Structures are given as C-alpha cells and as structure tokens.
C-alpha cells in the first residue's frame, strides 16, 4: 500500500496528496480566479483551461491579457490572435503585438483594434521592426481607446496626419514613443517613460513641435 503518508512530511507537495488537501482555489468565485488568470503570462493563462472542467470557461471571461510580444518560445500565430479576440468576452486589460506576427496586414490590425473584446482597453503596445523601410500606419480605430488607455507604447509606426489633433489620452500614466511619425514627419527618438504617478490627474496632450518636426507630450 502506497497511500499511507505521514503527517511529518516536508512541505513540497507530492503526487498522491489530493486526498489530504482540499482544492480551495477552485472554490473561489469566477471573478477572483479571472483576476489571477489575467496576471499570468498569456500562454500560461490560456493553459489554466486544462486544469479541470471548473477552469475551462474562466480564461475566456477573465480580463484579457493578450501579450504576443513577450511570450516564451514560439510566438502566437496571427490566426490565434484573431480567434482569441473573437471568442473573448471579458474586459480588456492588455494587448500588444509586433510586426513579426502581423506582417503587412493592416486590415487584420484594424479588425483586431475594432473587436469588442478590446473595448475599454487599458494597455496597448505596438512594436514594429525599426529596420523596416516603411513603418506601418496606425489605424484610426486606435482613437477609440483614447479615454481608457493607461499605458501606451508605440515603436516604429506612423500616425495618419488627421489624427494629430485627436490624440488625447486623459487617463494615460505611461507613454513610450520610439521612431514614431505623424503625418509622415519623423519625430526622432522620443521616449517619455514613467510619467510620474503624481501627475496623473493632469492632462497631457500630444502636440506638434516645430523645431525637430516631431511631437511631444505636454501637460495642460
């Protein structure tokens, strides 16, 4: 008989202890487990579905943390990103992606940004290859996140000229811009990382700056 285990066993849990400990985590409410899941890296969050049938529906309704930039191992394929955005019904907390999964498919990008799964998105990161000659145009659909974004990072992309005066992010706490152009004008390297939390109540507006033909963030 192998089942007998002494009480004085050392802390690391071992196979076969299920009978002794109870599964408290699965008793937590869906919203709480959703918060836990959204704090995991994207792949690990999705994998929680395989734990047990209790966990199967949770990932889809958990706050969406779709981070395709900092994944371990193979990147998340474009078709999978589209499917996740289609099937998710939780609130959106984080979405980031790079050109390596998107290619030059700006229609797909626009479709992603318009998906209801991203309503109220709080964190967005565009990262394209800065060595590419033509940096991709950011779709106008990005403007729908202006009031909800807390963190925005843009790398090697261009904003259409007519968005220049509409870029207004009242809740932004953290903004990073690198090799970003607006209306075809180069901004050079402009990184405004870690906007101080104390300035959070102030409003920041992106305005064009004539000197280096770029644009900067100013507090109103």
């Amino acid at each position, binding site marked *: 008989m192998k089942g007998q285990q002494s009480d004085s066993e050392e802390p690391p*849990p*071992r*196979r076969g*202890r*299920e009978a002794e*400990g*109870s*599964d*408290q*985590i*699965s*008793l*937590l*409410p869906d*919203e*709480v487990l959703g*918060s*836990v*899941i*959204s*704090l*995991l*890296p*994207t*792949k*690990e969050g*999705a*994998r*929680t*579905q*395989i*734990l*047990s*049938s*209790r*966990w*199967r529906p949770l990932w889809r309704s958990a706050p969406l943390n779709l981070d395709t930039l900092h994944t*371990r*191992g*193979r990147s*998340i*394929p474009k078709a*999978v990103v589209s499917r996740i955005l289609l099937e998710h019904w939780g609130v959106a*907390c*984080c979405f980031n992606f790079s050109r390596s999964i998107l290619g030059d498919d700006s229609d797909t990008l626009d479709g992603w940004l318009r998906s209801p799964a991203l309503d*109220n998105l*709080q*964190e967005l990161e565009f990262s394209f290859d800065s060595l590419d000659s033509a940096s991709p145009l950011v779709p106008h659909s990005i403007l729908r996140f202006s009031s*909800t974004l*807390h*963190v925005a990072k843009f790398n090697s992309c261009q904003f259409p000229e007519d968005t220049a005066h509409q870029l207004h992010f009242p*809740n932004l706490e953290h903004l990073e811009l690198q090799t970003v152009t607006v209306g075809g004008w180069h901004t050079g390297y402009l990184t405004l990382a870690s906007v*101080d*939390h*104390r300035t*959070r109540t102030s409003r920041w507006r992106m305005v064009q700056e004539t000197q280096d033909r770029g644009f900067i963030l100013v507090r109103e």
Partner: protein
Amino acid sequence: MEVDKGKGEAEETRKVAEADRDTVTLKSSDGKLFEVSKEAAARLSTVLAGMIAGGSIDDNGTDLKQIGSEALENVVDYCNKHANSIPSAALISSSISFNTAPFKEPEEWERKFVDRLSHDALFDLVEAANFLGMERLLDVTCHKISEMMKGKSPDQIREVFNIKNDYTKEELEEIRQELAWAFYDD
C-alpha cells in the same frame, strides 16, 4: 427585525458615541472581537465603508458571520498596517479609481504580508477580501496566487493546489489541440 422599545434613547446615545470613535469593532463567525481603524476600514473596504456611512456598525462588535477569526485577524492586521504605512502615490491613485485603474504591483510590505500566510490562511483571506469588497487586498492576494502558478506545468499546478483533473482522456486531447499554441514554450 426585533426592536427593544425601552432602549430607544440609549440606542441614540450609543450611535453618537460610535460616530465619535476612530475605530470600529468587528466580530468573526466564531465570536472573536477585533478593533480596526475606522479610516482605514472605510478606505479599504467598500462594504465596511457602506456600513460605517449607513450607521450599521455595532459598538459591541459588528457581526461578520462569513469570516472566521483567523481571516478577520489578517484583514484587520492589513487595514491597520495600511493605516500606519504612509500610502504611496500609486496606492492613492488606485484607490481613487480602482474600477478602471490597471493592476499595481504589491508593495514590499504587502508582499511580506501575504508571503507569511499558510495555504489555507491565504485562501480564507481572499474570500474575506472578496466578501468585504477590499479591492486592493484582493489584488495583493490574487497576485500571490498567480506567483504560485507562474512557470509551472498544469500537472505541477494541480499538485500545488490539489486540483482534481476531472477530464476524460479524449477531452484532454481536445483541449490540448485547441490550445496547441499555448503549449509551445521552448
């Protein structure tokens, strides 16, 4: 609701006295009493804030029948520690708009606070925080649980949390295929 008619006036006086105090007394499911800073309780728990504002705080110990004494002690400990530590700007801003603000990393003392808890105590605390509408404490405890899951395989996670795999072989295979992208880690 039973009302003791003769005690109407005493009740009034008691309520006034209660309003003047800067602590509130909470009673666990097993009848133990705990004092907590009224300011911290109101700031950290939407449920306690509502009870304080609505005057439904009992001087002899407000009954919290859903919370055991160990969990309530941790809740009170957390509130009092919070009251004593100078809240950082991050915490102030997150308490202003906790519904929309993104998750903020736990502070060092919050990390230590949850790290010392046993498995059982941690889950009891999560449930208490959830019941009392303590958004920040819930964030901190959820963060701790996610740290316990991070980097582990599904099998390892099941072991740590005693989760029983109730899938059939066929179901497991189906999910594994659907989530093939999530299993490519190396």
